[in-house]
């Protein structure tokens, strides 16, 4: 029986199997997915390699020339004669470089917040779905209550409380971590709900019974048996949540409660640029806003595509 199998189907190398997988086939046949993946990859690699890509070091005051302030895109500046591709802001900082560093921070906060939200949501969802009873009731009621508030409001609330608790001299340093904490905490519900429902389905399957039968401890069943089988939808939600987290971070920063101007994210850049919109220096706000748009859109389109491929029922 098995010899026949071995003869007909030569085992494929992992990259061959990956190339032939459904996900990859769908990727190669969805132009939108390929385009958004390309845009996302370019943006992410520019952000990661910002110190090497950026023509200027925008947060080193010694390299700044105040006379270059408000220099328009592609024109040589009055002070130094440098050409700033996307213009310069009021301090004479290169917009292109600030965008790269800002995107770096935005992406970091977004990824970290989604990581926090996913770990929290997956853990609580697994526990609620497997334990059932009053544990399930308590966790899911908390989730329901949190869902009745808009998540940006929850994030604002948590941000305010957490900021109030940090000592004033540490506030600017801690701002990034407080942001991650508040966005992550406002976004765990979706993970918990999805994981809970798939856990309830999986926990009734016989392979879990078999593990219980031989007396495997509960945490082993949860981690080794259930977790790998409920992670499929989590990947999809995480991708879509990444776009939401980046936007939430930008919103908080735009409202002035997020990343400080000394260490700006895309949201902070948009907020500072907004002051000059009516005085004609449009490039200070336009380019950060466009970058945010491209970033969020490409992540979102990737997430939508992934959802359609991995779970046709969710459509």
């Amino acid at each position, binding site marked *: 029986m*098995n010899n026949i*199998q*071995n003869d007909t189907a030569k085992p494929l190398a992992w990259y061959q199997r990956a190339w032939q997988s459904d996900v990859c086939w769908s990727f190669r046949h969805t132009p939108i997915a390929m385009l958004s993946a390309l845009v996302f990859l370019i943006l992410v690699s520019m952000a990661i390699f910002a110190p090497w890509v950026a023509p200027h070091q925008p947060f080193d005051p010694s390299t700044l020339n105040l006379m270059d302030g408000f220099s328009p895109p592609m024109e040589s500046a009055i002070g130094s004669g440098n050409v700033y591709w996307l213009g310069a802001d009021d301090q004479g900082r290169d917009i292109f470089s600030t965008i790269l560093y800002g995107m770096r921070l935005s992406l970091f906060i977004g990824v970290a917040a989604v990581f926090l939200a996913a770990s929290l949501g997956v853990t609580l969802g697994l526990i609620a779905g497997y334990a059932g009873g009053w544990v399930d009731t308590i966790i899911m009621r908390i989730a329901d209550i949190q869902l009745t508030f808009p998540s940006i409001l929850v994030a604002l609330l948590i941000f305010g409380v957490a900021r109030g608790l940090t000592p004033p001299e540490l506030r600017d340093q801690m701002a990034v971590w407080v942001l991650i904490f508040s966005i992550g905490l406002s976004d765990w519900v979706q993970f918990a709900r999805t994981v809970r429902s798939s856990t309830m389905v999986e926990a009734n399957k*016989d*392979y879990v019974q*078999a593990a219980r*039968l*031989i*007396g*495997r401890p509960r945490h082993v069943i949860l981690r080794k048996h259930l977790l790998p089988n409920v992670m499929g939808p989590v990947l999809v939600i995480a991708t879509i949540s990444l776009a939401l987290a980046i936007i939430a971070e930008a919103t908080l920063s735009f409202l002035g409660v997020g990343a400080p101007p000394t260490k700006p994210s895309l949201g902070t850049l948009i907020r500072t640029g907004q002051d000059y919109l009516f005085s004609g220096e449009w490039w200070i706000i336009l380019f950060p806003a466009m970058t945010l748009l491209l970033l969020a859109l490409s992540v979102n389109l990737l997430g939508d595509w992934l959802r359609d491929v991995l779970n046709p029922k969710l459509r």
Partner: protein
Amino acid sequence: MVQNMSRALVEVQGLGKRFDVSSPWLNRVLAREPKRYLSAVESVDFVIEKGTTFALVGESGSGKSTIAKMLVGLMPPSTGRVVIDGVDLMQADALEQNQLRRRIQMIFQDPYASLNPRWRIDEIIGEPVLAFEPEISRRDRSRRVAELLEQVGLSATDAHRYPHEFSGGQRQRIGIARALASKPELIVCDEPTSALDVSVQAQVLNLMRDLQTELGLTYLFITHDLSVVRYMADAIGVLYLGSLVESAPASSLFDTPQHPYTRMLLEAAPRLDGFGRQHQPPAGEIPDPINRPSGCFYHPRCPFVTPKCAQEQPLQRSMGQAQVACHEVERLPVYHPGQVIEPSVSN
């Protein structure tokens, strides 16, 4: 029963399971409903002797799987006890429980749900070894897995594959290998062949019989398929609505079924010599286990019903080699296969 005590591996005494099926607390208070219970299993007694196969047969909803779950300790019984080799599973302390668990294993119905799809075969089969003998080295464990795979008729090279690469019958063999991994004495088989093709069923059943003779295993075999029972079982218990209506050695049950329900089951089973045979379709449906009939649960469907049957629940009584729960069993006509049963009392 008493004289067999020394050889009995499993003793089930007055086993019962009640499920709370009431609506949620608030709805119940608002609608002034009482609590409602479903008796899935009620006062079931049987003994399984070492090295034999005891089959539980019954329709769906008769409590077969509930008994299996209570027997292996996945579900605590509401009443009664399960005694394995003299130890009550629910009373045992953690150490005793762990030792008992090792000796009881289970083969599941659906080979597609009983293997973790994200685990390799060697991890699946090796898990019981890891659980009960954590001191065993990784290399010895994979050697054990290879032995087990060959024992169930697969190849040792299959260890690095995933469950989706196997057919239903092969998966069931993997499930059997996992059950054997902890060197058990008792294996509870919950409809192990009902999800398989008929041709594969025979292979799996033969494998299970060979393993029984080779390893001296004791089986509790749960099924609704009488031809499987005839092939596998040494003794049979017939379940109806959570209670045993008849338990008897296999030969006596098939030749001289006593309880009217057992007779009906045998009549309803397809047979090779059944062409042109007059056939009495089973009367009625299995009743709602929440509102069970009074007296004998079978009386609304029974062709031999008497007024007493509707009032009094029959106790088990000996009839030849069988234990039968029927008031009228002494007065029933002798069973002839294929006979058409006329109701003796009209109601």
